[in-house]
């Protein structure tokens, strides 16, 4: 069945695909970094015991986790120009949407991570005179982060796969680049197969890394 296929289109399209892949990776890295930072703050707010902060954080996390990502991407893309008066561009819009959306998921992971560190560690930090932020920064969060590293990475793999949804608003990611070149060379199937292989190769390597990390963390414990 592959006799009609012409994979010669792949080398021709590589520079364009490369640009798309770079954007996908950049989007993943931005959403991961921003999402983990914002998510950690949300988790701390939720665990703070404060009524106002806790309610806001819980509401944020629960709401975003209950809405399909594609809808959030579309809504944000179409709503922002209404408020700001000018469109922000699909690429930038997607970066912000993904950061805000992923924060809700990273928040739950970090919450579990913080709770995995014993209460006694917080007391130990306080007992040598550390403030709340010093105790979190030097004692609790490094341990929470280490305990949750495999889960955080798994979430990042899902995030990387989900970045393909931005093609709905026309941002030029890996999938969109494959679609455009496929159309240009009139070889859409070959290009879709090729992009799938790229997604697979990246996600599979990351999964292997997660597996390796899980083993290492099991040894440390």
């Amino acid at each position, binding site marked *: 069945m592959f006799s009609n296929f012409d994979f010669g289109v792949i080398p021709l399209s590589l520079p364009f695909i490369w640009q798309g892949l770079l954007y996908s990776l950049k989007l993943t890295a931005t959403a991961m970094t921003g999402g983990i930072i914002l998510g950690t703050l949300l988790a701390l707010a939720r665990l703070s015991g404060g009524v106002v902060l806790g309610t806001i954080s819980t509401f944020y996390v629960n709401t975003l986790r209950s809405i399909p990502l594609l809808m959030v991407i579309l809504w944000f893309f179409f709503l922002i120009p209404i408020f700001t008066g000018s469109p922000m561009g699909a690429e930038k819009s997607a970066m912000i949407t993904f950061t805000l959306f992923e924060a809700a998921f990273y928040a739950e992971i970090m919450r579990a991570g913080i709770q995995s560190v014993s209460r006694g560690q917080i007391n130990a930090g306080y007992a040598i*005179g550390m403030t709340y932020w010093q105790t979190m920064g030097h004692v609790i969060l490094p341990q929470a982060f280490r305990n949750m590293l495999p889960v955080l990475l798994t979430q990042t793999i899902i995030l990387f796969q989900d970045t393909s949804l931005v093609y709905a608003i026309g941002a030029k990611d890996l999938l969109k680049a494959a679609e455009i070149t496929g159309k240009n060379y009139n070889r859409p199937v070959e290009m879709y197969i090729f992009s799938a292989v790229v997604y697979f190769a990246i996600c599979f390597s990351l999964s292997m890394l997660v597996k390796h990390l899980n083993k290492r963390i099991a040894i440390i414990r």
Partner: protein
Amino acid sequence: MIEINKVSKWYGSFQVLTDCTTQIAKGEVVVVCGPSGSGKSTLIKCVNGLEPIQQGNIAVNGTAINDPKTDLPKLRARVGMVFQHFELFPHMSIIKNLSIGQVKVLGRSEDEAHAKGMKLLERVGLKAHANKYPGEMSGGQQQRVAIARALSMDPICMLFDEPTSALDPEMINEVLDVMVELAHEGMTMMVVTHEMGFARKVANRVVFMDQGKIVEDAAKEEFFGQPRSERAQQFLSKILHH
């Protein structure tokens, strides 16, 4: 040094401490003992504000713990505390455990903190282990490091919350030895423990608690000789006659 005055504390509607009053003078060693659930660990955690109190007041070196204006971190930095489960920071090397508080809280330089940490490690006999991680050491060694960590902050007094009850029997003495030495040097100490041998050796006073109340607060000789309360007599007869 430590003044505990009519302290009461509730967890929800459950009262864990009732009207506790005692004082610990500078240089004094006070052992707090009593059956499980008597509130002794809770009381010692109230002294440096790890647990809030709802009634009464506690002052350390003249500073009120439960005054909202008190800079708690600053006060805690001067009050050493040793926990039942050591609570060393598992992601840091031993020497880092000893220097982090000095650097981040007291503002000492890394070199100064390192030097002081090494000196204290030598004192508790663990200099060779400076670059190990807590997980690589025995419970007794970890607890000695925990004492050294508390001492690294140059505390004006030390709180011990059941420092030997999570240890294997053969490791208890190495920790008690360090504590006895501290007591002989004149450190003000409040020690929650069941180690009556330690109490006999170095305590000035023994505070006996039951059901959240201080039942007996007496000089060591008096407490071990003839405790006034029946509850303390019972307790002593049970733990001493084995």
